[in-house]
Structure formats: structure tokens, C-alpha cells
């Protein structure tokens, strides 16, 4: 498939209809200075087949920016193809490109190489080159696949990191709870629960279940707890007063009982000895009443004895409590008192008092004469007990607090277990995704190496032709699927392998290497096109490389339709010398309203046709400039007029007119004063943008252009002989030139 014609309108730098005619059997070289529309035409090839422009995409520029602003209409690019002979067309409006109008469906992109493509490729890092190479090999979908997988892997890693961090926080919380002072009970209960030891599967954690004071601090908890309990026990009503009252009471009752017994005794004696008077009976006694009294007194005495026994038991309890409190205080005294606690002195005094009190109580239990008193502990228990309870942790009973803590620990432990499971899952996922990425890398590496092996020979051969210098040999592309993957050239320099080639090769040589690769890919690819577009690819090439490129294209792309765009006149000259059979065209001018003008056909005729067709002056400036420059340039060239050398041959009509009139005047030719030349010299169009590129000059009018066209035609008559109808440069004369008949001389 090749191209016969490309037509663009309102596209990029071409506001008007521009037709580029191509011969399928020929290669074409389009030359122009920069800014005259080469890339507009090259872009049209790409847009037609792809509906986009890669460099616009790269620069994040919408494709609608390809619509020419001055055109005032939507853009279109159309083409006539050869083999098959079909026409295709694609439009572009502000909403984007249309589908391709085509009888053969979508078209594969026309192979196009640009200088930027080559330079970018060679200047990229190995990782970027890998992406570029995959694109080149039509395997860029693999990089996309890999890239998304890698990003997702990054997310999985973040998730694992987050789960790990949360898990650690919860473990810390759990360990903090397990390390609490009040957990002796928790440890006991926890140990009773099935599976606790298995769940906390670390000996260290199990060890932490035991209650322990913070490092460096004595464990006050048991002593304090015991002190609170002991104080609570002794704060009950003290039995001492009751004891003393009971002892006094029983003494009275015993006296009474003895008195009654004595009375009873005299009665008994009187009965035994009736005639004897009873020394104890002083009067007749009512023996029955006396018996009642004895019984009552005995009963009261028994009650008092019972009361005394009860009180004795209370005394014993009290004694035990006092002993416990004494022991508790002694326990507290064994650990260092803390600020706010009862002082050691207070507790010491209390302990001594309690000790004495307990001894008194013990003695009272055995001897009724003992009279224990309420002990003075030197402290207000109503104040002290709440204070101690406050200092004691927990405020409630240790068992209740332990149970509460147990519930809390179980909750956290459950969370920890879930979080651990999640963390383990994230690790597993990360491992899996990482493995999948490795598989992708291995697969991509294999695929790339397979593709590279197919073109490696071509790359080496093309590079050899381009370089025309055997110092670099054995060109290879080396692919390494490391973390991000990389690809690099290796090359032998004087027989020694060098990688990367940047170490020894010039920029021009590197670009030649890149071009060899890109051309090899085009040649070995399965594109249906036999058209290859090269847009300014030789910027950094020296002359030998440029010769090499033309030779390579001629040798290796036989029957291909090569379309080259270049601003380089030296390259054009080389191409003309090396490939004279190619078609060479120049984009002679570009104006904002007229766009690029191809140097094909007679520019004056084209100008006249456009004027006759009613075209506006603003769109015809390029044609006018070209027509005038061509007419004047031909005369100047034929007459050999001296003119300052310009390597690019960039002469304005004004330059040419000045050179011509100067020459004629120096040779004292009357033609120097010819009215046409004078009219040209003073004509307004010479001072307009028709013949100059300066934007500060006024635009030419339609009348200016009609005048210019007429003057350009008249110029022929000035230098053509009316007699023999031959040009003045028909023959050389002694002084210069003359027509055939010699009537016209200069």
C-alpha cells in the first residue's frame, strides 16, 4: 500500500486546501526552510491513519489544536492510495477526530520516523528505552500490563504496612494491659480459660501475665490491700467497754447470789438442826421465796456468764483483727511509704498500740480482772481508710477489677488476632502479586528477546551501511528484566565489547544506531504500507552518515515509497546526487493565510489562476512572492548578476531586483531604465508582505497582486527580443549576452 495523493485542509499550518501529489513508484524528497509546513504535511500522514498526533499526546495537547485557527472551518485530511486504489478521509472538529472514511476499514499507521523519536530513544534511560522498545515492537501493552500490576503491588505493600503498624499498636496495647499490676488474679483466671496459653503463644507474654510492680518499685499492692482490710476490721465497735461492763455486772451478780446462798444455807441448817438457831438466819425466812430468789440469781449469774463468754469471743476476734492489722502495718512498713500514704512513724505507733491492745485483749480473755481499753491508734480511721483505698489499685475489689481487665484484654486480644490474620493475608497477597510481577517480567523478557532476535541482524547491517566504518561491529540489543527492566545496546569497538555505547560513540553515531534500529523494525514489521515517512531525521548526522542513509534506503527499501522531509539543503544535494531518480520538491513559502506552497508548476500561472478565481490577497502572498522571485531569479541567474552569497539561496525579490539593476547599470545597458524595472522598484507591492516576511509591513492588496502579476509577465518581454523571439542570454557576446539576432544585448 502506497500513497498517490495527500490532501489537507484547515489542518495545522495549512489553512487552505493543500494537495501533495505523490508517485507510488517514486520516493519523494520535500525540502524547505523551517517554518514552511514540512511537519504539517508529515503530521497529516499520522493523523490520517491514527486520528491523533503522538507528540500532541506527549505534550498533553488536545488533538483539536491541530485545527488551523485562520481557516474558520473543521480540518480534513484525505488521501488517495495505490494498491489498493481507494480514497480515505478523516475530519477533525473541536470534539475530536471522525472515524476514517474508508472502503477498506481502518488503516495501519504509516511508518514515520522523526528526529525527535530517534534522539528521545537514544537519550532515554534504560528503563525508558525499555518502554520505547516495547512500543517499537508493538509490545507496549505488556508494559502497560506490567505497570498496572506494579502499581497494584505498591498498594498491596501499603496495605501490608498499614496492617502491620496497626497490629503492632494493638499488640503494644495488649502487652500494656497484660503488664498491669492488678493482674495476679487475671493471670489465674486467664490461665484457667482454655486456650489462653495457646493464644498468647510467647513465653514472654505468659510471663507478663504475672502481676509485677514497675521495674525498680516495690510491690505495695498486696500489703496495701491487706492493710485496708485489717483497718476495716478494727474499725467496728470495740468490745472492750462491754467487756469491762460485763465484768462489773457479774461481780455484782455473784455477790447477790452469794447472799441468797447464805440465806438458803441458814434455812437448811435450821431444818437439820431445828433447835439450833442458824447463825446465818437472822429471821424467819420464806423458804419458797428464798428458793425463787436463789433460782433468779443463779439464772442472772448464768446469763452474765454467757454474756461474758460472748464478749470473750468478741475479744478474741478483736485480738485477731488487731494482730492482723499489726501484721498489715508491718507489711506496709516493709515497703517504702509513698507520698500521701500514712507515714512510717504513724504506722509504727499504731502497730505498737495494736500489739499492746492485742495482748490486753488476750489477757482479758483469761482473767476477768483485766480491763482492756479502746486502743488509740493515733489516726482517724474514718479518714485513713478511704485514703488508703484511694491509694490502693483498684478502688474496687481486686477480683472485680481483674475481671474488668480480663474483658478488656479479651477484646483487644480478639482484635489482635484478627489484625494478625489480616496482616498475614496482606503478606500473602504481596508475595503473590510480586510473583506475578516476576512472571510478567520473565514472560516479557522472553517475548522481547524473541522479537529482538528477529531484527538484530538487520540492525547490525543497517548500522554498518549508515556508518560506512567497520570500527563498530557486533551490534546487539541487550534486555535485562531487572526490577524495572532495561534494554541497552552493546557494540564491539575495535573488537572489544562496549556497553552502553554512549561511552565511546558520538551523538551522531548514537543517533545512527537508533535510526538503524527503527528502520530495522519498520522493515521487519508486518505493516501493509510500503510508504516510509522520514521527518528531519538527519539533523545530527554528518555528511558520511547522510550519504549512508540515502544508500541504505535505496539498498534496503527497494520498491518502497520513501517520503523525506528536510530543511537541510546539504542533505538535499546529497540525496539528489545519490538518488537522482527520486522526486525533489521544495516548499517554497508559507504564509499564515495561504499556508505552505509547494514549488510545483509555474507560480505566476498559479497566481493568475487564483486571482481569476477570486481568491483574496491575504491567501496569495506566497504565490506572489514565489512568482516574482522566480521571474527575477531566472534573469539574475541567466545574466550571472553578482549577488551576496547565501548558502540557503534565500533571496527576496528586492534582493534580486537590486542585483539585476546594478548589473545592468554597470554594463550601461539601457534596460536598466526600462519602465517595467522602474515600476517594480517603486511599486507598492515591493514594500508589502507580498515580498517580505516582515510582519510590521502592511498586507498586499488584490490590486497589488494584479499589478505584480502583470509586471512579472512584462518582465519576460523586457529580456526577450522582439525580432528573433529569443532571450537576451541566448548567446554570449564580448561584453556579456545577446539574443540570437544581436538586437538585444547586455
Amino acid at each position: 500500500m502506497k500513497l498517490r495523493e495527500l490532501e489537507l485542509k484547515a489542518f495545522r499550518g495549512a489553512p487552505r486546501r493543500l494537495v501533495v501529489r505523490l508517485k507510488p513508484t517514486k520516493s519523494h524528497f520535500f525540502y524547505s526552510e523551517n517554518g514552511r509546513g514540512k511537519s504539517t504535511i508529515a503530521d497529516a500522514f499520522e493523523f490520517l491513519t491514527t486520528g491523533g498526533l503522538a507528540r500532541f499526546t506527549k505534550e498533553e495537547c488536545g488533538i483539536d489544536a491541530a485545527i488551523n485557527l485562520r481557516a474558520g472551518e473543521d480540518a480534513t485530511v484525505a488521501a488517495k492510495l495505490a494498491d489498493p486504489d481507494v480514497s480515505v478521509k478523516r475530519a477533525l472538529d473541536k470534539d475530536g477526530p471522525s472515524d476514517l472514511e474508508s472502503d477498506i476499514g481502518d488503516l495501519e499507521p504509516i511508518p514515520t520516523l522523526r528526529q525527535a523519536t530517534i534522539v528521545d530513544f537514544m537519550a532515554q534511560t534504560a528503563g525508558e528505552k525499555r518502554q520505547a522498545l516495547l512500543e517499537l515492537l508493538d509490545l507496549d501493552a505488556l508494559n502497560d500490563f506490567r505497570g498496572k500490576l506494579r502499581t497494584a503491588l505498591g498498594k498491596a505493600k501499603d496495605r501490608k504496612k498499614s496492617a502491620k503498624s496497626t497490629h503492632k499498636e494493638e499488640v503494644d496495647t495488649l502487652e500494656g494491659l497484660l503488664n498491669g499490676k492488678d493482674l495476679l488474679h487475671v493471670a489465674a483466671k486467664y490461665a484457667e480459660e482454655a486456650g489462653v496459653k495457646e493464644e498468647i503463644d510467647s513465653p514472654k507474654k505468659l510471663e507478663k501475665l504475672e502481676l509485677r510492680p514497675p521495674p525498680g518499685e516495690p510491690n505495695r499492692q498486696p500489703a496495701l490491700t491487706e492493710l485496708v482490710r485489717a483497718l476495716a476490721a478494727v474499725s467496728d465497735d470495740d468490745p472492750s467497754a462491754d467487756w469491762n461492763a460485763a465484768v462489773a455486772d457479774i461481780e455484782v451478780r455473784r455477790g447477790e447470789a452469794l447472799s441468797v446462798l447464805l440465806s438458803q444455807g441458814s434455812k437448811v441448817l435450821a431444818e437439820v438442826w431445828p433447835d439450833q438457831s442458824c447463825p446465818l438466819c437472822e429471821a424467819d425466812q420464806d423458804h419458797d421465796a428464798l428458793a425463787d430468789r436463789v433460782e433468779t440469781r443463779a439464772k442472772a449469774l448464768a446469763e452474765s456468764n454467757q454474756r461474758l463468754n460472748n464478749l470473750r469471743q468478741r475479744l478474741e476476734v478483736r485480738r485477731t483483727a488487731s494482730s492482723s492489722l499489726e501484721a498489715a502495718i508491718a507489711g506496709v512498713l516493709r515497703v517504702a511509704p509513698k507520698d500521701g500514704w500514712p507515714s512510717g512513724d504513724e504506722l509504727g505507733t499504731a502497730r505498737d498500740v495494736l500489739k499492746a491492745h492485742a495482748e490486753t485483749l488476750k489477757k482479758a480473755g483469761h482473767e476477768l480482772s483485766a480491763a482492756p481499753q479502746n486502743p488509740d491508734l493515733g489516726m482517724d480511721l474514718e479518714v485513713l481508710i478511704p485514703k488508703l483505698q484511694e491509694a490502693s489499685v483498684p478502688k474496687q475489689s481486686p477480683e472485680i477489677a481483674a475481671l474488668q481487665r480480663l474483658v478488656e484484654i479479651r477484646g483487644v486480644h480478639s482484635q489482635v488476632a484478627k489484625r494478625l490474620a489480616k496482616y498475614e493475608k496482606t503478606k500473602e497477597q504481596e508475595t503473590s502479586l510480586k510473583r506475578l510481577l516476576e512472571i510478567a517480567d520473565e514472560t516479557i523478557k522472553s517475548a522481547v528477546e524473541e522479537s529482538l532476535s528477529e531484527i538484530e541482524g538487520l540492525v547490525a547491517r543497517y548500522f554498518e551501511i549508515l556508518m560506512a566504518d567497520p570500527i563498530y561491529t557486533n551490534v546487539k540489543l541487550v534486555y535485562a528484566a531487572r526490577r524495572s527492566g532495561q534494554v541497552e545496546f552493546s557494540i564491539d569497538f575495535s573488537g572489544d565489547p562496549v556497553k552502553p555505547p554512549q561511552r565511546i560513540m558520538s551523538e551522531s553515531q548514537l543517533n545512527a544506531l537508533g535510526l538503524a534500529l527503527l528502520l530495522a523494525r519498520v522493515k521487519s514489521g508486518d505493516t501493509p504500507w510500503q510508504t516510509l515517512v522520514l521527518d528531519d531525521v538527519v539533523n545530527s548526522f554528518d555528511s558520511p552518515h547522510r550519504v549512508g542513509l540515502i544508500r541504505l534506503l535505496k539498498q534496503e527499501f527497494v520498491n518502497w515509497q520513501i517520503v523525506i522531509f528536510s530543511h537541510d539543503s546539504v542533505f538535499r544535494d546529497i540525496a539528489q546526487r545519490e538518488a537522482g531518480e527520486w522526486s525533489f520538491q521544495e516548499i517554497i513559502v508559507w504564509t499564515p493565510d495561504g499556508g505552505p506552497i509547494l514549488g510545483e508548476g509555474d507560480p505566476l500561472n498559479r497566481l493568475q489562476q487564483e486571482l481569476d478565481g477570486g481568491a483574496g490577497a491575504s491567501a496569495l502572498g506566497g504565490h506572489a512572492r514565489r512568482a516574482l522571485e522566480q521571474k527575477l531569479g531566472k534573469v539574475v541567474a541567466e545574466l550571472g548578476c553578482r549577488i551576496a552569497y547565501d548558502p540557503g539561496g534565500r533571496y527576496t525579490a528586492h534582493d534580486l531586483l537590486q542585483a539585476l539593476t546594478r548589473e545592468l547599470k554597470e554594463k550601461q545597458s539601457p534596460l536598466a531604465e526600462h519602465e517595467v524595472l522602474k515600476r517594480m522598484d517603486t511599486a507598492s507591492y515591493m514594500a508589502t508582505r507580498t515580498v517580505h516576511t516582515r510582519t510590521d509591513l502592511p498586507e498586499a492588496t488584490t490590486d497589488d497582486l494584479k499589478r505584480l502579476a502583470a509586471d512579472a509577465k512584462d518582465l519576460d518581454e523586457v529580456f526577450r527580443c522582439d525580432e528573433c523571439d529569443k532571450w537576451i542570454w541566448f548567446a554570449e557576446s564580448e561584453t556579456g549576452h545577446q539574443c540570437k539576432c544581436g538586437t538585444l544585448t547586455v
Partner: protein
Amino acid sequence: MSKSATEVIEGLFATAAIDEVSAPLAGPLRSLWEEGHWDVDGIDGVAQADMAEETK
């Protein structure tokens, strides 16, 4: 003739080494690609779904 990108990825999912990827991930990921939804959110969604299933 070298393989296309599609053929390469098909081969990737068919390789024996894919067994080393967790089955709850490998299957859905393959489906994701086959259905043309191979993007970061899709891949991450597969991982999240697997996570939810595991820890629910």
C-alpha cells in the same frame, strides 16, 4: 513471527509458574484481564475482595 502482546499475556497466565500465585488472586486476575478491565483499581479490587473473604 514474534508473538503479539495479547499472546504473550495469555502465555503468562497459562504458565506453570502461575501456580505459585495464590489461587484466589490468580483466577480473578486472569478474568479481569480477559474481560478487558486490567487497571489498577480492578487489580486492587481483586486483592481487597480476597482480603474481605479471608477475614470476614
